[in-house]
């Protein structure tokens, strides 16, 4: 156990790299599990929407052609 923030940060980075380098099938299984956990948390904390039994993200605003310029 350490309270050295730099070491903690390096350790986290190394762990993320180790996760990223796992086989893709394994990472996809992790996504399945992460989604199940997210849903369980949401079910426990957010009142259910009576119109839907599926939790989903708000639509992503993929920009239409020619909208890059500010």
């Amino acid at each position, binding site marked *: 156990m350490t309270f050295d923030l730099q070491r903690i940060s390096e350790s986290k*980075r190394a762990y993320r790299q180790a996760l990223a380098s796992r086989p893709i099938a394994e990472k996809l*299984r992790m996504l399945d599990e992460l989604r199940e956990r997210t849903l369980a948390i949401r079910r426990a904390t957010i009142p259910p929407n009576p119109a839907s039994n599926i939790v989903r993200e708000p639509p992503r605003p993929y920009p239409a052609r020619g*909208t890059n310029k500010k």
Partner: protein
Amino acid sequence: MKISEVIVTINQMQTDGVIGTYAIGGAVGATFYLEPVATLDVDIFVALHAEAGSRIVSPKPIFDYLTTRGCQMEGEYVVIAGWPVQFLPPTGALVEEALSEAVTMDVEGTSTRVFTAEHLAAIALQTGRAKDKARLLQFVEAGVLDAKRFQAILTRHQLLDRWQQYERQYLKDSK
């Protein structure tokens, strides 16, 4: 609830001629290059074509195909193997290019097409929500972007100014 089953279903749709070329984008696409991050849905990009005798591009054949196979519709999503899946047409030049240049990946013997890391990062920059900016940072920190290729995409799609602004905001301190 399995993404691998979603991939098998999408491949079968392609084999059956319901969709043409497709590619996985969004957080699931990013997972092919980065550590997994929780997401609630799957973005599948497909080139949609107008039905015979119509000028309107419609996802109806996709929905018809899947609902006859027991999948539920939920708004703009179809639920496949427990995952809400959104079929998205390329809405701009960047996503069109991402779809045409997507790469084939192998998932335990099943092949699938995924946007390149550089296109996913450029789309995240273009989309620009907080979580897209966070994902872009993941791509940069993971060192998975081919700088030359990424730069070329940003130039082609007029995203250089936005990238410079992003660099100033999020990357300068870490250099």
